[in-house]
């Protein structure tokens, strides 16, 4: 078992899948010669050549559409957005083309493609470069959406996404690329889509989270553990389709839930989680569900303001205490 970075885990996934199936190619800005804006595609150009590792002009809408066209006629594109902030420009292709093609064509044209890139805030990148918008994409039927929070899940989910015959959105994170974790070598690392994972077990409360916030949730769990409070940490891993069973099993056990996410409050992913809980665990709740999320503002630049805006372990701890009726 080796300890590798999230970035390297993604790189391994790309390399392995491109070896496995020569219909797989990667396209995006700076993916080839520059070795990847965040070095996720490092070394791939050398290994697979410029037809399979394709640098594009700055044309998110354009190259997302190129991916759609290629997928329609049998290739398996991986379209990289340098960050998901820029992907807003491509939303017509992601939503109106990729997500809907199978349905509109009466089942004739499926879209075996992946759209991936870093999502959400990094450090002091300011309003236009800090958006976490998984909820926009999770809203759309016809898409699958995943958000790995650890290197193991990054590798496993990306591989599953590439092999899936549907358009899959992979939401990574600049702040995650350097994080480390155990990823086994010499074995196929596949994480199924649509399955959450219980990353920590406890009986007092449930923290349901995904992506970048998984680390914050685990930190919170550690600190709470020292105070004798043991929490379940449910890592959703896949936002759409969401593993509702994993959520409700945990909440039925603990009777209390905190939903922790990176994005904004209104109509965020957390709102959906809360709906599942109130729908299926109504009689099991001892307290209202508490959500922890970004402040309802565009991301500010100043370090202290940004820190105040972001959710973190401390806020998660406070939320757990609130659902436990502790001060």
């Amino acid at each position, binding site marked *: 078992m080796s300890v590798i970075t999230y970035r390297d885990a993604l790189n391994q996934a790309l390399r392995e899948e491109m070896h496995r199936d020569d219909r797989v190619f990667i396209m995006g800005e700076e993916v080839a010669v520059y070795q990847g804006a965040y070095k996720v595609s490092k070394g791939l150009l050398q290994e697979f050549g410029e037809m399979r590792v394709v640098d594009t*002009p700055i044309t998110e809408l354009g190259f997302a559409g*190129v991916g759609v066209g290629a997928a*329609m006629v049998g*290739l398996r594109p991986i379209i990289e957005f340098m960050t998901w902030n820029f992907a807003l420009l491509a939303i017509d292709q992601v939503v109106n083309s990729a997500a809907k*093609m199978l349905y*509109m064509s009466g089942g004739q044209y*499926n879209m075996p493609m992946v759209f991936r890139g870093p999502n959400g805030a990094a450090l002091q990148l300011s309003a236009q470069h800090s958006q976490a918008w998984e909820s926009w994409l999770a809203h759309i*039927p016809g898409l699958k959406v995943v958000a790995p929070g650890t290197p193991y899940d990054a590798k496993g989910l990306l591989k599953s996404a590439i*092999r899936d015959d549907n358009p899959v959105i992979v939401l990574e994170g600049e702040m995650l690329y350097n994080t480390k974790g155990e990823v086994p070598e010499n074995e196929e690392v596949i994480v199924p889509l649509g399955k959450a994972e219980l990353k920590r077990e406890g009986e007092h409360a449930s923290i349901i989270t995904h992506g970048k916030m998984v680390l914050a949730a685990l930190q919170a769990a550690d600190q709470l553990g020292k105070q004798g409070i043991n929490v379940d940490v449910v890592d959703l891993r896949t936002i759409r389709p969401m593993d509702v069973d994993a959520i409700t099993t945990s909440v039925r056990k603990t009777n209390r839930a905190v939903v922790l996410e990176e994005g904004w409050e209104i109509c965020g992913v957390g709102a959906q989680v809360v709906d599942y809980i109130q729908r299926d665990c109504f009689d099991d709740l001892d307290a209202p569900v508490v959500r922890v999320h970004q402040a309802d503002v565009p991301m500010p630049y100043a370090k202290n303001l940004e820190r105040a805006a972001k959710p973190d372990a401390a806020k998660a701890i406070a939320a757990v205490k609130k659902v436990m009726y502790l001060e």
Partner: protein
Amino acid sequence: MAKKKTDSANDVELRRDLLRSMLLQRRFEERCAEAYALGKIGGFCHLYIGQEACGTGAISILRPDDYVITTYRDHGQALARGMAPRAIMAELFGRIDGVVRGKGGSMHLFDRNANFLGGHGIVGGHVPIATGVGFAIKYRGGDQVCVCFMGESVVNTGAFHEALNMAALWKLPVVFIIENNRYGMGTALERASSIHDIYNRAASYDMPRGVVDGQDVMVVRAAVQEAVDRARTESTPTLLEVRTYRFMGHSMSDAVSGTYRTKEELEEYLKRDPIIVLRTQLQQAGQLTDDEFAKLDEEVKAVVQDAWDFAEQSPEPPIEALYEDVLVDTTSDAHAEAAVAAD
């Protein structure tokens, strides 16, 4: 533009086939207008009347393994590509036997067997897709071509710019065909575009380009042949402006004339009806009599009537179809086998 050798050999038969195809499209679209007025077709319905020569001429020189992608004004092109009138009409009527099982409607005709890649609703949205198809062809080392039809308003979109730039940059086998019918919904080209000879937009990409009269199917055919050859043999894209005219409103919901164009202008253009143009050519060459034309007309009308009847009889999709084809249940292994079996 020189006529190709293949044309002269079967010239008469070819022209008759083209005439029949255009006439079929015309009668089909006329019945669509009627069906729409009767409430049998709902939503948006964009008719091809007046533009038949563009699609017919272009598609007539394609191979079965070439690809066609177009806008929401797709009935004519679908018929020209050989898709079944029954299946198209049933789709317009929203029935299970429709070409996409009632899930798409007028704007979204797809047929994998005909390599007809739709039928797209967002102006300009399909142009990058065309570039992607070209990319895949090159990726595989094939010699197929992708023909991409679009309206003249598309050339002002960002998607058009991005798609053509990449097609030219990467030298992809795509033929971009602008069917310039001079008007968006009600905005004349001159009011929307900073240049009026819009084929010159290709200059931005150093892409081969041309402009032709879109009311003469033979002219269109020749021009497209040249562009397709270039794509097939040199893997180089072309931007072709085909100047045409639509006789109806932008869609069934829009005005035919009045606010944005005069009746007089329309009547001038009606004289250059592509069916009349070709028919006249044939008749002047002694290759078609009035009777023969009438017979042809009856024949296509019967086909359209048959399509109508078929559509009427076809049931609506079952409610379960609501949830079908949102996602596929497969991964690359299973799909690879299926794809191989299909192709």
